[in-house]
């Protein structure tokens, strides 16, 4: 299996995330980055203390919980035929979920409970006053994507391997977590599953990392040589650049993660996944020679030097090849809406 481990930095525990880490573009464990957080200290006393601390900050608003029968062993995944999911979701109060998790502490193989990616401020107002870190963001002329700060609460669970389109600082606050990481170029070796339905909006690798079926997924052997493992204890944080594939195992009977998601891209852009869906509709099934030609065209306009396409033209002739300002953003959107609505 994977032998490489993620780089660990041990001398960084300030209130602001170090910019050098952000510019690394490689996953980095920052040991003890949030060890002084109030919830980390409570969890160090006992799970019970951590649960009481969470309840004391909870405003009673219902959330959406993922509930998996003992048979799935905490692995939230597709159903056997890939058309559904192997667990239920249910609106419930978070304090009730905490009670259910606590009631399962004595069981060997309890029902799996998971609240994933719940925005903290909507349900735990005041929590971030005692548990927070500043993510430095560059100055920008146009509105950038907002920072999203979420809490993840559960017992022993596995979030199967997927990527997210935002940079991530994942702080292990209570319990233990193991991240299995792969760079973006490993997509084909990870055998992504259906685009929909998905547990969190992202396609999951079909490979069961605990028991890989190499006859079905032979290229996973290649992925292994590019993978790395990041083990986090309470108080540790992982900086995970956007687009890296990651499986996340929560290893203790009670685990809490707080994560920060941000993307230094203009808000008007929206999800690049829209481009992929559009390409599935309008590009993938064009005649082969056209499809291959479009690859050159996309390289020229999009993937190579972004300024290349306008460089040899007078400024006033740049149009959409130049900078996309507020007006051009609106014009392009209108153009697409009109052309798509047919």
């Amino acid at each position, binding site marked *: 299996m994977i032998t490489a481990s993620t780089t660990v930095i041990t001398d960084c525990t300030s209130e602001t995330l170090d910019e050098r880490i952000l510019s690394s573009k490689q996953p980095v464990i920052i040991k003890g980055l949030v060890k002084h957080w109030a919830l980390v200290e409570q969890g160090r006393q006992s799970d019970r203390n951590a649960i009481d601390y969470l309840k004391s900050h909870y405003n009673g608003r*219902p*959330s959406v919980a993922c509930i998996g029968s003992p048979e799935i062993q905490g692995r939230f995944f597709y159903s056997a035929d890939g058309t559904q999911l192997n667990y239920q979701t249910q609106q419930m109060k978070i304090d009730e979920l905490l009670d259910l998790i606590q009631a399962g502490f004595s069981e060997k193989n309890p029902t799996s409970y998971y609240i994933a990616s719940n925005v903290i401020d909507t349900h735990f107002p005041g929590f971030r006053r005692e548990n927070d870190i500043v993510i430095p963001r560059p100055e920008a002329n146009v509105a950038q994507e907002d920072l999203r700060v979420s809490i993840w609460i559960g017992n022993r669970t596995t979030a199967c391997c997927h990527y997210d389109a935002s940079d991530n600082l994942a702080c292990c606050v209570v319990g233990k977590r193991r991240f299995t990481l792969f760079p973006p170029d490993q997509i084909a070796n990870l055998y992504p599953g259906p685009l929909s339905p998905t547990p969190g909006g992202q396609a999951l690798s079909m490979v069961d990392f605990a028991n890989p079926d190499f006859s079905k997924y032979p290229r996973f052997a290649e992925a292994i040589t590019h993978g790395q493992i990041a083990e986090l204890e309470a108080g540790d944080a992982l900086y995970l650049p956007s687009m890296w594939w990651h499986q996340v195992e929560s290893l203790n009977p009670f685990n809490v993660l707080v994560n920060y998601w941000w993307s230094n891209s203009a808000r008007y852009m929206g999800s690049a996944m829209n481009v992929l869906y559009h390409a599935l509709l309008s590009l993938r099934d064009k005649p082969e020679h056209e499809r291959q030609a479009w690859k050159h065209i996309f390289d020229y306009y999009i993937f190579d030097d972004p300024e290349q396409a306008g460089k040899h033209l007078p400024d006033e002739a740049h149009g959409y090849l130049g900078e996309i300002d507020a007006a051009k953003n609106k014009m392009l959107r209108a153009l697409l809406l009109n052309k798509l609505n047919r």
Partner: protein
Amino acid sequence: MANTALLNNVTHHQLKVITRFGAEFGDSISSALVFPTEFIELQKEYPILFRQHPETKKYQATVLLGLSQNENLFLNSSAPSGWAAHYIPATVAKGPFLIGMQHQDSGNSNIPVIHIDMDHLKVNNENGYPLFLEHGGNSPYLEYIANVLKTIHQGIAIQDAMFTLFSELDLIEPIDIDIDLHNGEKRRLLGNFTIHEEKLMELGGDQLERLNKLGFLSLAFAVITSMTNIRRLTDIKKSHK
């Protein structure tokens, strides 16, 4: 129970909706629910009246379309749409469509979505306007319906605040409407409320500013002005004889 479905461009690709109005489609109604978001348009055509729910005591706006039960004086087969007016109340114009709320899996919010009553007399596969374009895009008619439903949705959101302020300022008064049908026949319409014009005139500057800043002052005047349309109803009725 209505046979409603969440509208989508796959299942409902062939669907058409008849946009004509007529007695044969169940349009013989003597009043229709209306919303503050359309008062300015409605005042040019219909008398706007308030009704009070007998139990909740909440007010709801209506327009008068006829002077006796099941009489809709605006139905007119020689008009292009079958309805002789420039503006048609949103609850009528929406035809077989309804607003539904759909829970978003990513959070605790609900977003409005369009439902359709498949058993509605105007829904079919042959006649009327298509809902979707050839490749599944929204037809201009569906875009129009989305706007009509938005008028209702936004109207529901503001009407309680409007009636609360009208009540607080004591602007709502009961009105019995006496109608002389020129042929000696008389009608009296009971149980309606309107805006008390004198009380509106007596409001102080601060009160007027409050009404105006919330956008309700022009609506109060629209209700008052709309009463002249009762004359229009009697004139249409007379011309039908």
